[in-house]
């Protein structure tokens, strides 16, 4: 069923838009279930453990390939029709429906690991699969948590509880969006910084920032940070309930399962954060504040396949320009920093730092607003000398 949005603009005349991807978003309801195809295949093929690799092969091999094959998303709603698109309930209902699915996937994968006779490799495959899909749950929580309504923000906290990441929405909305593309942001990566070094800064930094922001809010309300008024703790409490129950139900094997699952889910966000602002830097204004986040302060990808899986997360510039905008309305622009593949492909590149630097450093320095000017780049202090030595005279060399 196609819906066409229309507006009679006083100057531009009739503007129309049909969202050709409208029906594709249903895929988001099936994606968490993809995590279970490995288990289904295992039983279907007579307990064949190789089937457990299927979801991992999908994410790490098939998705980057399909991004390359299907290419760019030509759908781009006109700015004037965004308000109408925002109002369409269909899109938000899809995100709500995925939340119980994420809980379900954790329960089923936990049951599988807790009850079946499996080799360590099989357990690892299922655990990593569960972690990836809980990481997608964090992405859904990102979409929900940016909205103003209490219902959607509560749903976000439930989605985050699946991977024990309850601080995320607070630290992301009030911390990352405020500090993005500056050296002060633990969730913005620096040129020359590997994802592993970044992770050691990002994960604890995010926890600390989320706790700090929520504590400040509660202080204003004269409430204790150690109370259930604390929205971070509300989500963690749910995590303890959920994950504690799994340990009680399925025994000690749940401890390594949950630890690795949680970490791998968090690492999906680390991976996304790493590639989204690598090396980009906002300039300070005269009054000491940083300039507003501009489109050129985010790396984007307009690949249709992975964007469907991620609720348009890859249209990152528009997200930072309009943080409360719903995923269906996010727009792409020309002349913004662009990644050479979708997120899942770029994650793989990021996991091999020398390959990441080889592909991304020149791309970063060639951006129109940078053009070799290192003062416009967020550089890892430990790598500053070697980067300046290598690239410092680019302007003079007319690169």
């Amino acid at each position, binding site marked *: 069923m196609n819906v066409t949005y229309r507006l009679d603009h006083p100057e531009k005349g009739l503007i129309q838009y049909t969202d050709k991807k409208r029906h594709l978003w249903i895929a988001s309801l099936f994606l968490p279930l993809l995590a279970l195809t490995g288990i289904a295949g295992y039983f279907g093929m007579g307990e064949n453990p190789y089937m457990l690799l299927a979801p991992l092969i999908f994410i790490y091999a098939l998705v980057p390939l399909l991004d390359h094959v299907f290419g760019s998303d030509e759908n781009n709603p006109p700015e004037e029709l965004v308000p109408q698109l925002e109002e369409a309930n269909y899109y938000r209902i899809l995100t709500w429906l995925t939340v119980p699915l994420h809980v379900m996937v954790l329960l089923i994968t936990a049951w599988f690991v807790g009850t079946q006779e499996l080799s360590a490799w099989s357990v690892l495959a299922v655990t990593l699969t569960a972690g990836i899909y809980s990481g997608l749950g964090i992405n859904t929580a990102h979409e929900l948590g940016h909205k103003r309504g209490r219902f959607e923000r509560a749903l976000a906290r439930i989605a985050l509880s699946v991977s024990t990441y309850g601080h995320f929405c607070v630290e992301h909305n009030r911390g990352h969006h405020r500090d993005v593309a500056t050296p002060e942001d633990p969730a913005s990566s620096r040129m020359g910084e590997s994802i592993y070094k970044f992770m050691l800064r990002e994960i604890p930094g995010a926890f600390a920032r989320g706790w700090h922001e929520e504590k400040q809010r509660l202080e204003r309300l004269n409430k204790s940070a150690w109370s259930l008024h604390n929205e971070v703790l509300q989500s963690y409490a749910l995590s303890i309930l959920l994950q504690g129950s799994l340990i009680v139900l399925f025994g000690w094997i749940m401890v390594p399962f949950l630890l690795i699952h949680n970490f791998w889910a968090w690492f999906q966000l680390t991976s996304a954060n790493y590639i989204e602002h690598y090396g980009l830097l906002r300039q300070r204004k005269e009054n000491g504040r940083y300039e507003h986040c501009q489109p050129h302060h985010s790396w984007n990808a307009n690949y249709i396949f992975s964007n469907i899986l991620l609720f348009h997360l890859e249209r990152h510039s528009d997200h930072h320009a309009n*943080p409360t905008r719903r995923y269906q309305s996010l727009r792409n622009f020309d002349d913004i920093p662009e990644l050479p593949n979708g997120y899942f492909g770029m994650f793989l590149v990021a996991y091999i730092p020398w390959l990441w630097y080889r592909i991304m450093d020149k791309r970063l320095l060639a951006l129109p607003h940078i053009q070799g000017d290192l003062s416009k780049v967020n550089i890892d202090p430990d790598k500053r000398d070697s980067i300046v030595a290598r690239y410092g005279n680019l302007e003079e060399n007319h690169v």
Partner: protein
Amino acid sequence: MSNYRCNGCGYVFNEAVGDKHEGYPPMPFMDLPDDFTCPGCGVRYKEDFNLMPPPGR
């Protein structure tokens, strides 16, 4: 009592109401802390808010 609107996301701070969730009682907008960021988008500071015109008659 005036309303101030975030020029980024449209969030409105109503001086007569404050923002209960954020812990701001009814108060003059200008008395908000200098590091106050918009509760809607988290991005804009006080100087990015616009005083809304009073409702017309």
